[in-house]
């Protein structure tokens, strides 16, 4: 796909995010809009996956450790062909394959059930360790939230990832700076988050604009450093693409009403 096509896909996914959360009357648009380019880059360009064979043993694995960003994940999986896009209308509804948080037993293409913060990074670490052990050539990607890095489990997993020299593992940090109760700095300062991952033994790549597809792809395409896990720190904008949601704490876990939906969709027109 060309960059233009990928950018158009991002816009489409953003419209999906708005429609899914508005239809459901709940969900997490802010952190879904910030992570859109990362997920589109992975699923439409970088990862070795086949929507026809979602359980292919050699496929690359993806773990959405910030599991509340399901609107973005489902938008990407739906547009990539893992399930019919009509399913998105049932997001968060009874009996839907599109649960509020990712469910690996219900939704094709979801490799790990997540939603309890911190656990996805550790699951991905176990996957990468299991892949090394079994000789599986896959690469494992996990998207982490920045507020999520306040969980101790992230650092337990990071220590293990470095200890076991998991160069088949990439953490991607969606560093939008905001969480439910305020900014990271107000809630619990993360300090030098890139430096922390480096100190834990990661090969760290900084992406100045994580909502710029070219920059995200450049980072993803850098070769891994032998014997080291990679952490790509993407500086992103929470609520990206919808003017009244950008950098607003209040849009973490709130759905747009119909009026707000119309305005957002207008801003996200192709």
């Amino acid at each position, binding site marked *: 796909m060309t960059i233009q096509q990928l950018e158009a896909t991002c816009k489409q996914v953003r419209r999906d995010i708005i429609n899914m959360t508005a239809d459901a009357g709940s969900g997490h648009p802010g952190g879904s809009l910030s992570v859109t380019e990362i997920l589109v880059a992975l699923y439409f360009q970088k990862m070795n996956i086949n929507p026809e064979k979602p359980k292919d043993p050699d496929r690359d694995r993806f773990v959405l450790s910030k599991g509340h960003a399901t609107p973005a994940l489902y938008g990407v999986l739906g547009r990539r062909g893992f399930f019919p896009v009509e399913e998105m209308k049932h997001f968060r509804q009874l009996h839907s394959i599109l649960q509020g948080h990712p469910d690996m037993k219900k939704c094709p293409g979801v490799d790990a059930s997540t939603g309890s913060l911190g*656990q996805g990074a550790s*699951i991905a670490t*176990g*996957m990468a360790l*299991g892949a090394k*052990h*079994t000789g599986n050539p896959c690469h494992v990607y996990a998207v982490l939230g920045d507020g999520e890095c306040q969980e101790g489990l992230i650092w337990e*997993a990071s*220590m*293990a990832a470095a200890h076991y020299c998991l160069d088949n593992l990439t953490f991607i940090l969606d560093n939008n700076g905001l969480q439910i109760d305020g900014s990271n700095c107000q809630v619990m300062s993360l300090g030098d988050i890139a430096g922390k991952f480096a100190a834990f033994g990661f090969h760290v790549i900084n992406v100045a604009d994580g909502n710029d597809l070219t920059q995200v792809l450049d980072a993803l395409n850098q070769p891994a450093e032998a014997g080291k896990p990679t952490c790509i720190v993407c500086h992103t904008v929470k609520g990206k693409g919808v003017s009244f949601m950008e950098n607003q704490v209040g849009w973490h876990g709130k759905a747009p009403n119909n009026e707000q939906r119309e305005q957002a969709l207008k801003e996200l027109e192709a």
Partner: protein
Amino acid sequence: MSDKIATRVAYGEALVELGKTNEKIVVLDADLASATMTGTFKKAFPDRHFECGIAEANMVTMANGMSTMGLIPFCSTFAVFAGRCYEQIRNSVCYPHNNVKFGFTHAGLTVGEDGGSHQAIEDIALMRVLPGMTVIAPCDANEAKKAVAAAAEIDGPVYLRLARLPSTVFEDMPFTVGKGHVMREGKDAVVFTFGIMVEVCLEAANLLAAQGMDLMVVNMHTLKPLDEELVKECAAKVKNVFTVEEHSVIGGLGDAVASVLAGNGACTFTKIGVEDRFGQSGKPMDVLREYGLCADQIAEKMLASRG
């Protein structure tokens, strides 16, 4: 009967046996391999043993990730840490019903000297409530070995509750997950029990026999799924039903049996176990006595509360 062996020792040996025929078996430890007795597996299959450091939560979630790659991980640590990594067990493993096993040792009061901070009296309650979790507490080394082999055959999470204290090894018995085993017939009363308390209850039954009370002893090694049919069947034959456990009387076997029998029979029902309090340091048998769980104390309680 032969020399006493702890179920944790049998756990380590059983894993080695299993490892010989099933290369998917991997074992994870949190710096306790020499206590959970998985050190034997580590020695036999160094490339299939994964140290996780003193980080139980990460051990569980990593094991979960490994299970999605087709491996069968056995997580090993102390039962008291079941609570520490509980939400990882709940959400990462049980919610998607992934194929991860938990061999948690040093359960119950018979941990002894390490004291109340290390004596898990709540782990069964925690595990029993998780949908899809199988909970097994073997009574001796033979049963522990069979339980390990059975756990590997189950497609889903299994919690194995294992003991530190060496205990009597009984004659070989049939073992099927979810099927209780009548160890001693009796016509006056029945006791449902598991783990080390099976031996203690058999001893109590001998004491009671001298007092004219004929006690049936049922080994309920599988706490979940509970053998409800056997519970009903045995309860229908007697006037008095007892449960005995090295666990809190809240949320353990007593409550599980009570749920089956509630409104269902004309018998008396008495739960014997740890009465909503923490353990403490002491020699294992001294601690059991302090908490009223020695054979003579159990026999006395049964005589006092029979209908």
